C-alpha cells in the first residue's frame, strides 16, 4: 500500500472545497469512485480527476502535492489517518478535526484548526488570521488537540479557544488569545498589540515582554512547577518547544475586564 496521492494538475480559477477528501471518507473507495467525487468550486462541481492526478491506494495516508492557497477545507472533520500537504493550503485547514494528523509543508490561510477537538496539526510555514479561532457565530474556537506552527500566525490567533495547545515558533499578530476561554498558547517570537484582549481563562506563554493593555495585571515573578510538567509533555513534539525547560516566569493575569482568570507568562 502506498499513500493515496493527489497531485494538482489544473490551474484553479476558483477556490475548491476539499472537505470530501479525508481518510474517513475515502476508506474502501476505489480509485474510480474517488475520481468521480464532486468538489464544490464556486457555483460549479468539479470531479476530483479534473483537478488532480490520483495515485496510490492507502486512504489512511493522503498526500496532496503541488497544493496551493486556493484549496480550502483540507482535513475537514478528520477523525483518523494522516494528511500531508505539500505546497500550500487555503482556509479552514483541519476545520473541526477530531483526531489524526495533518502536516502542511507550506503556508495556510485563515481559520486553521478552527473547531479542532483532537489530533495534531503541523504547519511548516505561516498561517493567516484566526488560527484556532471560532467561526463567526460559533462560541468556541479550538476545543482540543495540538497545533504546531513553525512560522508566524496572523491576527486573532486563539480567539475564543476553549482547550488544547498551540505552539507558534514565529511571531503572532494582534489580538492574540482574544476572548480566550481556556487552553495553552506558546509563542517564541513577538506578539502584536492587545494580546489577551478579553481573555477569560487559559495560559499564554511568551518569551518576550509584550505591550499590555490596562486590564492585564502584573502578579509578579514566580517559579511554577506545572511548567516543568508541561514542557515534559512537549518532549516528543516536532517543535522547538520540545527543548525548552524553564519554569521561571513573570505572571500577568487578566483580562480583568472579562473575569480575569487568564494568565500571560513571560520567561525570565
Amino acid at each position: 500500500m502506498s499513500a493515496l496521492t493527489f497531485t494538482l494538475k489544473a490551474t484553479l480559477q476558483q477556490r475548491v472545497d476539499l472537505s470530501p477528501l479525508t481518510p474517513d471518507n475515502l476508506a474502501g473507495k476505489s480509485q474510480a469512485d474517488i475520481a468521480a467525487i464532486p468538489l464544490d468550486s464556486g457555483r460549479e462541481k468539479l470531479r476530483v480527476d479534473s483537478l488532480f492526478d490520483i495515485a496510490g491506494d492507502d486512504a489512511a495516508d493522503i498526500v496532496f502535492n503541488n497544493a496551493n492557497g486556493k484549496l480550502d477545507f483540507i482535513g475537514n472533520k478528520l477523525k483518523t489517518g494522516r494528511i500531508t500537504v505539500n505546497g500550500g493550503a487555503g482556509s479552514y485547514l483541519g476545520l473541526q478535526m477530531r483526531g489524526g494528523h495533518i502536516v502542511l509543508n507550506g503556508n495556510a490561510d485563515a481559520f486553521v484548526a478552527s473547531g479542532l477537538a483532537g489530533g495534531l496539526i503541523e504547519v511548516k510555514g505561516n498561517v493567516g488570521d484566526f488560527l484556532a479561532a471560532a467561526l463567526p457565530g460559533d462560541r468556541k474556537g479550538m476545543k482540543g488537540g495540538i497545533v504546531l506552527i513553525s512560522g508566524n500566525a496572523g491576527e486573532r490567533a486563539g480567539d475564543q479557544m476553549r482547550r488544547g495547545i498551540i505552539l507558534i515558533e514565529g511571531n503572532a499578530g494582534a489580538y492574540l488569545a482574544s476572548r480566550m476561554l481556556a487552553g495553552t498558547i506558546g509563542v517564541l517570537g513577538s506578539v502584536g498589540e492587545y494580546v489577551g484582549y478579553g481573555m477569560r481563562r487559559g495560559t499564554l506563554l511568551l518569551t518576550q515582554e509584550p505591550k499590555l493593555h490596562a486590564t492585564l495585571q502584573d502578579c509578579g515573578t514566580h517559579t511554577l512547577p506545572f511548567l516543568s510538567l508541561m514542557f515534559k509533555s512537549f518532549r516528543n513534539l516536532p517543535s522547538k518547544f520540545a527543548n525548552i525547560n524553564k519554569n521561571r516566569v513573570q505572571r500577568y493575569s487578566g483580562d480583568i475586564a472579562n473575569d480575569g482568570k487568564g494568565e500571560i507568562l513571560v520567561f525570565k
Partner: protein
Amino acid sequence: MIINGVTIDDTFAEAFGMRGTRVIITAQNLRWAYNAARAMTGFATSVIACGVEAGIERELTPEETPDGRPGVSILMFAMSSAVLIKQLETRMGQCVLTCPTAAAFSGIDEGYPEITKINLGKNLRFFGDGFQTSKVFNGKRYWRVPVMDGEFLTEESTGMIRSVGGGNFLILAESQPQALAACEAAIDAMSKVPNVIMPFPGGVVRSGSKVGSKYKALIASTNDAFCPTLKGITKTELSPEIESVMEIVIDGLTDPDIRVAMRAGIAAACELGAKNGIKRISAGNYGGKLGPYHFKLREIMA
C-alpha cells in the same frame, strides 16, 4: 522444609481482596517529598481502625516523576473502594495540599486489567476558591491551586485496582533482639520489592491477633497460641526455646507481588539462620475459610 537451620512450617498465609492505589508525591527535594508521604501514610497500619493500610513503596528519581522533581511513591489499600476513595481524599487534603512544595500525581495508569479512575485532586481544587485552573497534558488533567507557597499542583485522578492485603509470615526466635534483627533484615530485603508495602511500624507487627475474644465487645484479641509468656497455660504453638514472635504483614498490588516479597523476606530472615536464634517461620491464617488468597510458605520458598 529447613533453610539454614530454620524450620519452614507447612502452613499458609491467608490474605484478602482489597482495593489498592498508588500516588506519586514530588517536592522540591526528597526531604519534603518524604514529609508529605510520611504524613499521608501515617496512622495507616491496619484497616481495623485506620481505614486504610498505607506505606511508602520507594524513592523516585527526578527522571521517573511527572514533573522532574525528586519524589516517592506510596501505596494505599482499603477493604472497599468507598473507604479508599474517602481516605485518599482526606489524606491528600490534610497531608499533601498542606505540605510545602509537594505535588501529587497518579501512580497507576496502565498495566492492570481493570483500572478504576478515582479522585486524587479533583475535589481539592475547590480549595482554590475560584482561582484554581486546570491544564490538560497528554490527555491527563492537572489542577493548579494557588496556595501561600506558590501553587499546589495535582493530577485530577489516579487509578484504583483490585489488589491483595494481609499476606504475612511469622518469625519465631530464641530471643526478642534476635527476632527483631531478623525482621529488620527481612524488611530491608522486602523494601526493594516493587508494588508492595509493609504497613506496620517499621514493617513489623508484634501484636498478632486471633479472631474473637472472651470479651463480647471485641472481635479480635491477642494470639495467645503465639505468645511466649503463655507457653505453659494456653494451647501453645511454641516450642520451649521460642521466646519471641514477630510478624510481617504485606499488602501488594497483585498476588505475585506478595509472593515475591514474602520470598525475599523469608530468605533474608533465614540467612541469619539458627545460629542467630531464628528457629521457625510460620504464617497466620484463619483455617483458609475467610480469605481467598492462600500463600503456602513451602511453595513460595521452593
